[in-house]
């Protein structure tokens, strides 16, 4: 089957560094005059006289094909090049290298409310936004009632948009975009905006579009949406294509890359996940399993110890809380002394190690990470998100060698089964 999108060796280079993206003519003249001297000075100092701007490749040698009717999900960390890829596919910016062939018309949804003007009414904005996104006037007229009905703003259609609530605004904006009829639809994390009802509506509409045979390219961080909608998935890392194929396979590759379990210990004195403004008090965290040694891989059903070492200015009675989260960031459970108060009467200490021991770790196998909350009786003063991650290893807890699959939940619950005569 022939592809509807063909991307060959795509690359995009951005200039960064001392050069401003826009400048004044005065700057240009000054730089032009000073250029020979700069080169001379650099050469005298023994360095190569290169330009004092550097560049980064936002995308590099990306090649893939999308078949008609596919829903391709694009995932990757922030800065991996996902939005850049969509921008190039939407003709907003030009590639530096490579080539793209499109065998269908493209409609892009890169932002909610493109073209909306605050002073104009809802009705006027539907026409304006529709025209900006590529619809003809006749087409907008034809679909106008459907758009307004989808957005559920019939009574407000003649009020200036600046009076709308944010919910109405995004509903209307999405309604216009949803009625674009391109063969290829590009969507960029648009679903991140808005409340649950709106997100469900967006997902529903995207699903409808996909079932109607359109090709959708969808960038999102919402793993559940990717899993629900996409027929194939592409992962970008640092601008290069690192995985392409079945969504579940690519997503677990993504997740594995992002949170390498490591060796069960992490230094916390300086940590990127610390809540801004908090005083660093926790210095180290260690995870120990059944064997008593620090480890990043713990068998389910075995004990788990979270050991947090802290150093504070004054002696205090520590209150430690941990939130265990899935690799997608969804919290699974919280174990915190704030709700048990077991250490409430201990001797206050300025430096100590707090140990939290869970007798049986009842998680479904997978990657998990831990948020740590340290405080005293009053409140929490040192919070670190994703302080450390670990892997829960399978173990035969049921006696049959089988465990529930990962997408059925994160907690493993034991139950007794019996059957009775009715």
């Amino acid at each position, binding site marked *: *089957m022939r592809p509807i999108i063909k991307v060959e060796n795509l690359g995009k280079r951005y200039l960064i560094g001392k050069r401003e993206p826009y400048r004044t003519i005065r700057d240009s003249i000054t730089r032009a005059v000073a250029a020979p001297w700069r080169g001379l000075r650099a050469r005298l100092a023994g360095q190569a006289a290169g330009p004092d701007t550097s560049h980064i490749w936002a995308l590099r040698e990306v090649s893939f094909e999308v078949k008609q*009717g596919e829903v391709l999900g694009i995932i990757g960390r922030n800065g991996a090049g996902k939005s850049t890829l969509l921008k190039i596919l939407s003709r907003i910016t030009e*590639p530096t290298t490579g080539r793209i062939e*499109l065998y269908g018309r493209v409609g892009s949804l890169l932002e909610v409310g493109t073209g909306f003007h605050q002073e*104009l009414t809802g009705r006027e904005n539907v026409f*304006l936004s529709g*025209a900006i996104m590529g619809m003809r006037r006749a087409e907008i007229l034809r679909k106008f009632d459907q758009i307004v009905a989808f957005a559920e703003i019939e009574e407000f259609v003649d009020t200036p948009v600046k009076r709308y609530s944010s919910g109405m605004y995004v509903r209307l904006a999405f309604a216009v975009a949803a009625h674009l009829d391109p063969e290829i639809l590009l969507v960029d994390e648009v679903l991140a905006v808005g409340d649950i009802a709106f997100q469900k509506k967006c997902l529903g509409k995207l699903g409808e579009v996909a*079932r109607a045979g359109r090709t959708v390219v969808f960038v999102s961080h919402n793993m559940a949406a990717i899993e629900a909608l996409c027929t194939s998935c592409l992962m970008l890392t640092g601008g290069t294509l690192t995985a392409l194929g079945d969504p*579940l396979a690519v997503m677990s590759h993504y997740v594995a890359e992002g949170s390498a379990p490591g060796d069960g210990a992490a230094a916390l004195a300086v940590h990127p996940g610390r809540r801004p403004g908090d005083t660093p008090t926790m210095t180290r965290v260690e995870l120990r399993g059944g064997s008593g040694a620090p480890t990043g891989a713990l068998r389910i059903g075995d004990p788990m110890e979270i050991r947090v070492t802290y150093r504070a200015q004054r002696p205090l009675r520590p209150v430690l809380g941990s939130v265990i989260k899935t690799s997608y960031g969804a919290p699974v459970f919280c174990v915190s002394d704030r709700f048990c108060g077991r250490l409430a009467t201990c001797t206050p200490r300025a430096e100590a190690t707090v140990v939290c021991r869970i007798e049986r770790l009842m998680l479904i196998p997978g990657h998990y990470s831990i948020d740590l909350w340290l405080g005293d009786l009053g409140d929490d003063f040192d919070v670190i998100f994703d302080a450390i991650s670990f892997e829960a290893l399978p173990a035969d807890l049921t006696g049959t060698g089988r465990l529930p699959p990962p997408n059925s939940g994160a907690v493993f619950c034991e139950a007794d089964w019996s059957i009775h005569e009715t």
Partner: protein
Amino acid sequence: MNSESMNVDRAVRTDDRPPRISTLEGPTSLPGADGAVAIELPLKPILTIESARGWTRLDLRDLWAHRDLFYFLVWRDVKVRYKQTALGVAWAVLQPLLTMVVFTAIFGRLAGVPSDGEPYPIFVYAGLLPWSFFNQAVTTSSNSLVGNAALITKVYFPRLVIPGAAVGAGLVDFAIAAVILFVMAFHYGVAFGASILMLIPLALLTMLFAAGIGMWMSALNVKYRDVRYALPFVLQIWMYVTPIIYPVTFIPQRWRWLIVLNPLSGIIQGFRSAIFSRPFDWSGMAVSAAMTVSVLIYAAFAFRRMEREFADII
């Protein structure tokens, strides 16, 4: 009916989820049961995206395909400009009108500048009308790209539409200010001849020249923000070197050739000839037309060349 009864010992239901498209091989043609039909793909790509070098085609077909958008942008600019203003559209008229009053007082009365035998107010207004249009069109279009940065970074459409729409919006103001001209002509007893019809091609010429300059300035403004500051100043000087306040005869013969170099001179002279039923200076107007067309063509190509970087540097 037993179709509803379920076997209670079966733990998992396998046949009532909607069919999911196969993930490993990628979808084959979708079943017609859904109402979906695989569209026949064209043999050649509808669009090829590649890095371009040097001068690119103008792509007039793309522009024509977006004419609805052009109309909507003009409509938006006009509507928004006068929303929440007290005087509304009257502002379109006040500017040339008040300028005319001030110039009449200073140059017509006090300085005694000649006016080709016509009453000074209408003489100067005949020049101010196209000039105001040009001035406003160039100023708004030069800022139009930067002002629409949000659109440029989020949606694709031919960027030429943006400064074009700014000039188009100016046309609306021009039309309103032109009405005042007719009122004044009636007041001063100026009779129109057949030459008044020349106003239409002349207005068109002004618009094309404004579009050319505006396009070029708007593209330059994206990269060099000086344009925004330099332009008002340049336009101010430009007004004084164009025979608006004074007739061409005011300038000594020696320097007359400089005046001819200014495309607006030919246009403004043409406006005056049309209104006062004077003989036209065809050579002057021909020069203006030639310069307008060259500027327009050059500006369009220069714009297309600079367009590539807009989304990256705006």
